[in-house]
């Protein structure tokens, strides 16, 4: 009835029977997860928020709400994964020359969940959420092309994240790292449920990302407003397009690899086994066929954000727009040609290594072009060093540093000596933290006022910036040194005392990063408290250049009263300059918006149930879950009335109220950008 599941699987029972430090830490983590979930349930019940949550959020097909839910999901997962990172550093420091608090298996679970969460359940949802919120607004659309599919993508991603969270309480997670290399992850070496949790969580997330990519790409191709040619799109939309194309094509190899691994484990196939003609090297090949484009899926959206930030906060048009577009496209295509550099040491001939090494270095060229263009955008601009710009400028310096170590690693001969060492760990954190996380935090700072109608508190933003940047440098620069000293990644303890000081500095960095997360939370808390004075109802707090600033903050469900028409890039700047930004349109019509649907929540629950059931071999539940999910899809296809009509009068009233608020608002110069005076109306020619 319950497959392989028994009481022993529950983390609290394990800790009761074997109260070692490692199990107790596991139980504490499980307790935190359970407490968090219970607290959410209690709060929702006490404040009677279940109904608003259901009808306002979970069943909503509004791209803005879906985007926000993605971001909330990713921030929760970020918190867990950062805590895990700090715990690992603490353990490693304590464990120098002796046993640390964590068992080796527990340590291995930690680095596996840390990596899996950071890539699939922090980074991907965060960038997908930002894209979801911003991109349709930037191209002047009311929604994405397929709103229900959008909700289903979120449902699948959330289901994967839920599986990882469940593994904290019931059973154990994989010890195979985020890349889950076979043959280690084959049944012969990794018995039990851990790898299965990993397989199904990652597979769900990868399906969700494929569908997101499809949705975004079609939206950009087919839903741009009149006059918005591809080359008039904001650069963020271009990087979104390239990221979407990568998602469409690069997730398939991952799905294939995880399905093959599952077949090996569940049905005794021989794709990656040691015996009977299996080829474990094909696993690495397939995984990195996905994994390398994935790097650019993660980084390109941040490039787009930085492009918007540099232009907006320098008060200038982006320098070299076309070159930036072509550089982005080059990076996207080249990203499919370099995957072998992740396994230079696997034994293929030197010629192949050389080809892929050269291809890898080639990517530095378009990336370098971008760096120069961001610099040139700032030249002679009126730069405002507020939080997003601080992150952007720091990104430039830090990212170039990480890129330089990447050029080192692209050389196979050098890679051989530092392969899988902490040098590599330092390198990819040095790329992804500035190249993804800082960008996304900057994006949150920039677009939060658009989404909620009030700015984020600047002081806490700067404090967070200081923590993040100092924390990053302290946490990861020592790893370069440790890597060169011979410390390998994923090692739970070393006997060499000279590692101690470096690890201590790295731990301090990890704690500072935790402080950065705390500052973000405080920033949110303080901003909500002071939302009146931070309010920007008119909707243009940063003297924005693109269409998303041309509507109120928060925007109405339908985004634009009438679909805008544009005739150039930087569309909103031109509208403001020509005095057309805030007019009462005379051609307001009834519109149709997608009506709420319960299909996505049903699919989410069904996916969690199926994933959990398959992990624990509870076959009846797996069948039930699959039937429920697909049944919901088929049942939905019999529903024809999927739209909700919004009369023109509603639109007109909403627009008039906004214009009325606008007339009572005093425009603010850029000097007053972070003052309470800033109500979201930018001064002319400021």
């Amino acid at each position, binding site marked *: 009835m319950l497959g392989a599941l028994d009481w022993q699987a529950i983390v609290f029972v394990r800790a009761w029977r074997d109260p070692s430090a490692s199990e107790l830490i596991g139980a504490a983590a499980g307790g935190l997860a359970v407490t968090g979930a219970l607290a959410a349930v209690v709060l929702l019940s006490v404040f009677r928020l279940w109904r608003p949550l259901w009808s306002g959020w979970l069943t909503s097909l509004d791209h803005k709400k879906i985007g926000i839910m993605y971001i909330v999901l990713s921030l929760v997962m970020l918190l867990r994964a950062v805590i895990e990172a700090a715990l690992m550093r603490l353990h490693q420091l304590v464990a120098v020359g002796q046993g640390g608090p964590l068992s080796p298996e527990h340590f291995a679970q930690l680095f596996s969940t840390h990596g899996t969460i950071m890539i699939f359940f922090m980074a991907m949802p965060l960038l997908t959420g930002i894209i979801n919120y911003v991109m349709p607004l930037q191209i002047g659309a009311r929604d994405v092309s397929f709103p229900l599919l959008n909700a289903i993508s979120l449902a699948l991603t959330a289901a994967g994240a839920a599986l990882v969270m469940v593994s904290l309480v019931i059973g154990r997670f994989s010890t195979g790292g985020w890349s889950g290399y076979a043959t280690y992850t084959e049944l012969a070496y990794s018995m039990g449920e851990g790898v299965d949790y990993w397989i199904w969580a990652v597979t769900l997330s990868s399906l969700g990302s494929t569908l997101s990519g499809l949705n975004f790409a079609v939206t950009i191709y087919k839903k741009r407003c009149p006059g918005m040619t591809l080359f008039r799109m904001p650069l963020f939309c271009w990087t979104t397009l390239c990221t979407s*194309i990568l998602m469409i094509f690069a997730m398939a190899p991952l799905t294939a690899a995880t399905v093959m691994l599952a077949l090996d484990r569940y049905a005794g196939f021989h794709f990656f086994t040691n015996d009977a003609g299996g080829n474990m090297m094909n696993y690495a*090949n397939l995984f990195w*066929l996905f994994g390398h484009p994935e790097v650019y899926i993660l980084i390109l959206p941040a490039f787009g954000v930085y492009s918007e930030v540099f232009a907006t906060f320098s008060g200038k048009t982006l320098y070299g727009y076309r070159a930036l577009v072509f550089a982005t496209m080059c990076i996207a295509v080249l990203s*499919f040609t370099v*995957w072998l550099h992740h396994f230079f040491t696997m*034994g*293929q001939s030197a010629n*192949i290594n050389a080809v892929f090494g050269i291809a890898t270095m080639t990517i530095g060229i378009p990336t370098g072009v971008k760096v120069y263009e961001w610099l040139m955008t700032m030249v002679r601009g009126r730069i405002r060093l507020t939080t997003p710009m601080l992150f952007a400028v720091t990104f430039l310096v830090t990212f170039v540093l990480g890129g330089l170590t990447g050029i080192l690693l692209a050389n196979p001969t050098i890679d051989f000596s530092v392969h899988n060492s902490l040098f590599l760990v330092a390198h990819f954190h040095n790329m992804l933290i500035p190249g993804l996380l800082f960008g996304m935090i900057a994006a949150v700072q920039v677009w939060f006022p658009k989404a909620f109608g009030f700015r984020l508190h600047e002081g806490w933003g700067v404090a967070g910036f200081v923590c993040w940047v100092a924390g990053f440098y302290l946490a990861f620069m020592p790893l370069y040194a440790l890597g060169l000293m011979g410390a390998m990644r994923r090692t739970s303890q070393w006997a060499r005392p000279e590692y101690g000081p470096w690890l201590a500095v790295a731990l301090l960095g990890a704690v500072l990063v935790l402080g950065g997360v705390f500052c973000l939370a405080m920033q949110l808390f303080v901003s909500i408290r002071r939302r009146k004075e931070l309010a920007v109802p008119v909707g243009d707090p940063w003297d924005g250049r693109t269409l998303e600033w041309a509507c109120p903050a928060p925007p109405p469900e339908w985004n634009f009263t009438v679909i805008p028409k544009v005739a150039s890039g930087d569309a909103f700047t031109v509208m403001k300059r020509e005095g057309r930004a805030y007019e009462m349109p005379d051609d307001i019509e009834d519109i149709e918006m997608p009506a709420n649907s319960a299909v996505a929540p049903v699919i989410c629950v069904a996916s969690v149930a199926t994933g959990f059931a398959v992990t624990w071999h509870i076959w009846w539940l797996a069948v039930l879950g699959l039937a429920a999910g697909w049944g919901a899809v088929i049942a939905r296809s019999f529903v024809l009335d999927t739209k909700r009509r919004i009369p023109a009068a509603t639109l007109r009233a909403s627009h008039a109220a906004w214009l009325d608020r606008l007339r009572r608002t005093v425009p603010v110069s850029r000097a007053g950008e972070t003052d309470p005076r800033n109500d979201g109306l930018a001064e002319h020619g400021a």
Partner: protein
Amino acid sequence: MTDRPEGIPESEADRPAREFRRYVTGGVLSLALTLAAFGAVALRLVAGQGALVVLGLLALAQIVVQFRYFLHIDLQKSHRDDLQLILFTALIVGLMVGGTIWILFDQHTRM
């Protein structure tokens, strides 16, 4: 096809018949290419690496035929988005399949 619906301009009248002929052309060409491939193997006209080339070319021809006559992909301007999509997919597929085979066969020879 005499029962064409009302309201179609005279010049468009033979379109159903024309499109029908397109499907027939596609079907016949596909059938011919299929039989050629099976025939070449059944009659032992090809073998070894040469067979891979001949059969591969026949398959490619049939894929082009089906895209052209069943999926109606051609060089018209209104189809450019889709044609670009398909060609880009072909590029990615080529990179992935070619790269995989190159890498794994090379590794195999060195084991």
